[in-house]
């Protein structure tokens, strides 16, 4: 538990910043995705209530984006302990992991919201569009997954040698 130049006192600031960034930014994306696609889905339900259950897919995918952020925030928080060494390197790696999932999740959530809103309205008029809607949503979701993959790779590299 030493304070050296490699393990400065301020290193946990950046580690916690990473965990927070993952959660905050991906929850912003998920919130936008839920709200924006929810408007379209309620519109679908007004005219075709039988299509509502299948039209809920964008909302589920926006929730998954929030789970990506949760996973990275949990992984980063578990690595931090006041009684063990924590180097500046580990702090910056955790910051990078958090920002990576955070911004990717925010972008994915935004995309799912706009696409979900537009696609369910199309699904209302042409139910054969369901497969196309799901494909587009999957591609939007996988953007968040890319951020998660990079975060997981980075997190394995975080080590503290004082």
């Amino acid at each position, binding site marked *: 538990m030493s304070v050296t130049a490699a393990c400065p006192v*301020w290193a946990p600031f950046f580690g916690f910043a990473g*965990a927070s960034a993952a959660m905050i930014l991906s929850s912003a994306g998920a919130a*936008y995705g839920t*709200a924006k696609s929810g408007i379209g889905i309620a519109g679908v339900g007004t005219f075709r209530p039988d299509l509502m259950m299948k039209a809920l897919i964008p909302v589920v995918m926006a929730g998954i984006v929030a789970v990506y952020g949760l996973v990275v925030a949990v992984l980063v928080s578990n690595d931090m302990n006041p009684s063990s060494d924590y180097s500046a390197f580990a702090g910056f790696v955790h910051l990078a992991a958090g920002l990576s999932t955070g911004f990717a999740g925010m972008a994915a959530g935004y995309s799912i919201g706009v696409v979900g809103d537009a696609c369910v309205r199309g699904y209302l008029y042409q139910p054969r569009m369901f497969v196309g809607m799901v494909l587009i949503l999957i591609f939007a979701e996988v953007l968040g997954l890319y951020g998660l993959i990079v975060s997981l790779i980075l997190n394995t590299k975080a080590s503290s040698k004082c």
Partner: protein
Amino acid sequence: MSSYYASKTAFLFYLAGIFALIVFLDLVFTGNGVQFDVGRFLTDTSPYMWALLGVGFTIGLSVVGAAWGIFITGTSLIGAAVKAPRIRTKNLISIIFCEVVAIYGLIMAIVFSSKLNDAELADGEVWPKSAYFSGYALFWSGLTVGVANLCCGVAVGITGSTCAIADAADPQLFVKVLVIEIFGSIIGLFGLIIGLLMTSKVREFDTK
């Protein structure tokens, strides 16, 4: 202001950026460049500042989110209930979902403030590493809980407003659109979980 190329918020960001640049260049050109030190700033400020900022952000931002959600839902609810008065009691649950976001923030602020204790430094003493850890953990946890609840409150507000209007159009839609609102409210719950996780290992502020 509307005739400018950039929006009002962009204008403020540019102004803040120019001010920061002027401060930075002043330090560099007067031979005091070594004072521009992020690590020194982080260690010279008291850990209590960070911790208490976190507590303030927790309750402040959560309540902003809850209030925002309530006014979005409430206005739509009353407007739709003019033509369909039967919806007014059932859709109060959307208002309650937004209120719950503020309760999350309140609970977390109380939990975080219970980790604070008044320790004074003697002359020449520095805070131990665990005190800085506690300060930073409480700051970022507070910000996480606050901003997650802010986003959640707005999302629940928008979907609650959608729920009220859909219910006014067709009563059987209420439960289905409520599902979307539940998905929105889990975002605040995730923020709560992360806030609790980050501060679980926080030790009390001790001068040893």
